[in-house]
Structures are given as C-alpha cells and as structure tokens.
C-alpha cells in the first residue's frame, strides 16, 4: 500500500487543481459537471483495462509493447467484418475474443519456451498486428455507422444516477475486470505464484510452481484485455483507422502501471495503483483541454513531466524512509 500513497496524493492534487482552475476561473461547473465527470470516467475505464492487462505482464518481469496493435486489430477488425463483410456479430465477437487469446498464447510460448526477451517478442507483435490489419483492410477505415446501437451501449451507455450524472457502462466493465484481477492477485494461489515468479523465477520453479504456465496466463490475460479495450474503444468512437488506431496506447498503459507502483523488474504491482496511474494521466489530459487548450500540443510534454516527477518523488520518498529507518 505504501507504494500507492504517492500516486494517490498526486492524483488528488491534479484533480483538485483542475477543478479549481477550470471551475473557479470560469465561474461555472466545467470540470465538475456531470457530463465531464462521465467522460472522464469513461476514458479512465477504457485505458484502465489496458493498464490492468499490462500490469500482469509487468509483474512477471515482462513487458507487452503490442497492446496498441491488438487494440487496432480488434477495433478495426470487428466493424470491418461485421459491417464491411456482413459477418454475424456473435461470430465476430467470438473471433475478437479468440484471436487476442491466441496472440497472448503466442507471446507467452515464445517468452517461456524459446526464452526470447518479452521486449522483442512484443515489439514484433506491435509491428505484425498493425501491419496485418492495414494489409487485410487495405487501410480502409471501418466503423459501425448508425448500426449496432445496442452493442455500442457497452461503451457509451450509462446507468443514470441523478440529474445529469450516470455511471458509464465501461466503468462497470472496468470494475468487474479490476475486481477479478485484484482477487486473482491477492486471494488466490495463482496470483501468489505470479508475484513470486516475478520476484524470483527460480525460487518459484524450485517450489514446484509451473512458472511457464503462469507467465503464459499473464500474457494471455493481457492480450485478452487489450482486445476487450479495443472493442470498447471502437464501440465508443464508432470508427477506426488501421494506420493509427491504438497507436502509442501501450506506452500510456505501461506508464500508468509504473506510476501505479509496478516495477519493471517484476514482482510488484497492485490493481488500485494502476487505476490511480491511469486516472492521473486522463485527468491531466482533461486539464489541458479544459484549462490550457492553447497548449494542447504540449500535452505529451506535460504528461511526460508529471510521470517523471511522480517516479522521482517516489524514489526520493523511499530513500527518506530508508534513511529514517537506518537512523532509528
């Protein structure tokens, strides 16, 4: 829990700052409007699913750079098949589940059986899935047009709560995913195995844990969640272009996970932390659009600086604590 305090405080500060700057300066509920909060929550939900997925892989000491391309593959593939080629939606959705599972399995097998480095395997994945999507769609944009309103409710629907505010449906999906993964990590033997092998693969293997299987499971879940996020993204946005749909999302997901306390060396990470990291990045983007729209092209720089500040502060805090411990 200690690892999360820093990011939680940072999130709170940025949240309050945005609120004050956006609403106080304009004298209206800009940031704190139901509408904006809903939007914010929906975005956190979509990106959060990616972050949770990649955090599982990071816990094993690996990395997944292919997330964004899996988002692209599913996000483009689903409307391309369902609308462009008239395949029945249940079949398409089945494919949208099976394909990411197969991709994750492939990554896991290459990493465990062939002992290839995760960075390389998933970098190749990044290139291959996007290239393939661009190839089979011939770079055509795909979208649902006016159809599939029911399905699209999953991404843009809401459960009305009170005047002007409702809980976005994707947030419920995120809640489900986060809950399952959190329980998996903390309450089941498999979560414990994952944490153990991330810290010391040998210690886990020598204890009779089939570490290879657990690593494969992590990659499979990660790719599956990337596919799920890809589906929700396209249901939300309603159209996807192969050349750039999901571009860079892996980096934002990894950044969120790291901000949330995951160490790229493996063995640590919490779901709550990842959610806080995701929220921080999304609130920042919201802040820039609401408060500093003219500096919107510096968005990357601001996010980069905040992430850096976050990890530096975290490190300095850890050192201060260690020094105090040593002194006492």
């Amino acid at each position, binding site marked *: 829990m200690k690892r999360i305090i820093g990011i939680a405080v940072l999130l709170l500060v940025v949240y309050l700052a945005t609120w004050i700057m*956006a609403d106080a300066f304009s004298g209206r509920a800009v940031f704190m409007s139901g509408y*904006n909060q809903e*939007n914010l929550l929906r975005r956190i939900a979509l990106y959060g699913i990616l972050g949770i997925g990649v955090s599982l892989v990071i816990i094993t000491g690996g990395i997944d750079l292919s997330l964004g391309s899996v988002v692209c593959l599913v996000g483009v593939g689903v409307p391309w098949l369902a609308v462009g080629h008239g395949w029945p939606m249940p079949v398409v959705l089945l494919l949208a589940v099976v394909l990411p599972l197969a991709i994750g399995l492939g990554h896991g097998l290459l990493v465990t059986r062939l002992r290839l480095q995760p960075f390389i395997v998933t970098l190749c994945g990044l290139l291959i899935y996007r290239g393939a999507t661009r190839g089979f769609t011939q770079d055509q944009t795909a979208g649902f*047009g006016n159809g599939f309103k029911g399905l699209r409710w999953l991404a843009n629907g809401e459960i009305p709560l009170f005047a002007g505010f409702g809980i976005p449906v994707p947030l419920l999906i995120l809640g489900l995913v986060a809950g399952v993964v959190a329980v998996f990590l903390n309450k089941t033997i498999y979560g414990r195995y994952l944490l153990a092998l991330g810290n010391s693969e040998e210690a886990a293997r020598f204890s009779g844990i089939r570490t290879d299987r657990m690593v494969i499971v992590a990659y499979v879940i990660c790719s599956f969640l990337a596919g799920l996020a890809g589906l929700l993204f396209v249901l939300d*946005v309603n159209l996807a272009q192969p050349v*750039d749909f999901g571009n860079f999302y892996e980096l934002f997901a990894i950044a969120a996970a790291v901000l949330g306390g995951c160490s790229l060396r493996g063995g640590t990470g919490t779901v709550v932390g990842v959610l806080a990291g995701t929220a921080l990045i999304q609130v920042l983007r919201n802040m820039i*659009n609401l408060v500093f729209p003219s500096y919107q092209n510096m968005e990357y720089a601001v996010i980069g600086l905040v992430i850096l500040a976050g990890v530096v502060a975290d490190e300095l805090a850890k050192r201060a604590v260690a020094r105090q411990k040593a002194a006492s």
Partner: protein
Amino acid sequence: QKSGGGARQFAFVTNGVDPFWTLAEQGVKAAAAENQMDVKVLMPAGGAVEQKSMLEDLLTRGTTGIAVSPIDAANQVDLLNEVAGRSILITHDSDAPASNREVFIGVNNYDAGRMCGQLVKEALPQGGAVMIFIGRLEQDNSRLRRQGVIDELLDRSHDPSRFDPPGGEIKGERYTVLGTLTDNFDRALAKANVEDTLSRFPDVGCLIGLFAYNPPAILEALEQAGKMGKVKVAAFDEAERTLQGIRDGQVQGTVVQNPYMYGFRSVEVLKALAAGDRTVVPADKFINVPARQIRKDTVDEFWKDLNAKLGK
C-alpha cells in the same frame, strides 16, 4: 498488365494514409483500368522521411510518371525536381509551384475553407462561438483550410498567406473562434477533444470538423452528450456519418473536395504527358477540381454518386 517487361509504370503518391485517399485510389484504379495502365498507389504512413524514400524507390523502379501530394512543398523542391528530372511529375491535392512539376490537379484549400466558413455562417446567422477540430496543423492544406474558415468568419479579405497561430481566442465582430484542437489522427482523442470542449464551453454555437473523421467524432460526442441539434456542425469531406448527419439535419453541410477526381484526372494527365501530349496542361498549370458545398438538398444525389464510384 503486370509490372514485368517494358510496360510503363506510373505511381500516385499521397501525403499519408486516410479514407480521403482511399477515394482517390478508386479514381486512380478506375482511370487505370479504362486506359489499361499500371498505376501503383502509395501512401506513406511515416511522414516526409518515408515519402522521400518512396519517391526514390519509384525512380529506381524506372517509373514513367508520378503524381505526388507533397507534404510540404516549399521544402521538397529539390526532391520534387529530382523526380521531375527522372520522370514525369505532376502534383495533386497540394501544389509545389516552385518545382518543375508539369501541372497541379487539386482544389484551392483556402477557398474551400472559406466555403466551410459560409456553412458556419448559415448555421449561426446571429453569430456565436465556434471551435475548430483538425488532425494536424502542419501540412499546407490543413493550415490553409483552417485559415479560410477563420478569415471567412471574420469577414477578412482574401489572403491565403495570413496565419493565425493556434493558441488563444480569435474574436471577430460576430464570430469568436475559441480555438483549434488537434488530435494527430487519434480518433479517441478527436472525440475526447469535442467532449472537453462541450464541458468547457457549454454555449459553443458551432463545431467545425476539418478532417474527414472530425465530423463523425463531433456527432458521436454530441449524441452522447444529448446535445445533438443544439450545437451546430459544419463539416469537411464525405465520411458516411457526415453525410448521414446532413440528411438527418444534424450537420449544416460539408465541403467536399473531389479526391476521386484527383486520382482519375492524375492518371489521365500522366497518360497524355507520357504520350507527349501537352495539350492537357493549361496555361496557369492548374487543373481545378473545385470543392463543393453539400447541403441537405444535394446530399442524396451526391451520396448515390459516391457509392457508385466506390462500387457499393
């Protein structure tokens, strides 16, 4: 005919990857089939660096004629002249007047922007605040297009060389341009930009989407916000959702270029030039494929024609 032997090869090079170019590709293919020519369509996804290596490799292949949409004409003169030296060069969509290109096929983006501005004026005859959404500001065509909109709304004189930097509000007598938000072709971000605008400026009067996917993103956001119809929309290009929006009265209108025609005409011109026929080149070296405004009354006809071109 395949690319083997002595068959002449031609190429149509875009400035990026976009549905807009897919339409142009259809035009290229149609014309190529009609004239029994071998024309490759190349879309660089990696910006100017990739466009350069594509052109070099086309020259290597011994391509007879090339139609290019330069990413930044002023700085690509050398490259374009190299192409012109080894092949027949024409430009489309975006011109490079300082180069040795034979002719330019395209639209005047500044004028097209002013046409879009007129649509805004129709939508908001009393004046009001507007926000501009666009993919990037770097390429000439988008800069000119945006400037055209602004100049029209501020009733300024016709001056394509003017440039208002994107930061800050631009206030005119009747219209205020609240800002310009870019998204780098990230659809999710394009939508988020609209949402955040609705949060910050609840009384925004009109949303202007200048890249093909911007109007659909605007419509998505408006629908979710329950503001459809309350906020006006002015559009550019012919995304399906945009046309549907015009039909449903959600969009005031859209300015369409004619990318299909860019492709089609480019092939025809290349063919003529390769055969030594220079009559296709007008004196001002500009083949205008004018932009058009599509409103509710013309949308059905336009759409039918479009689908026919796309083979739908």
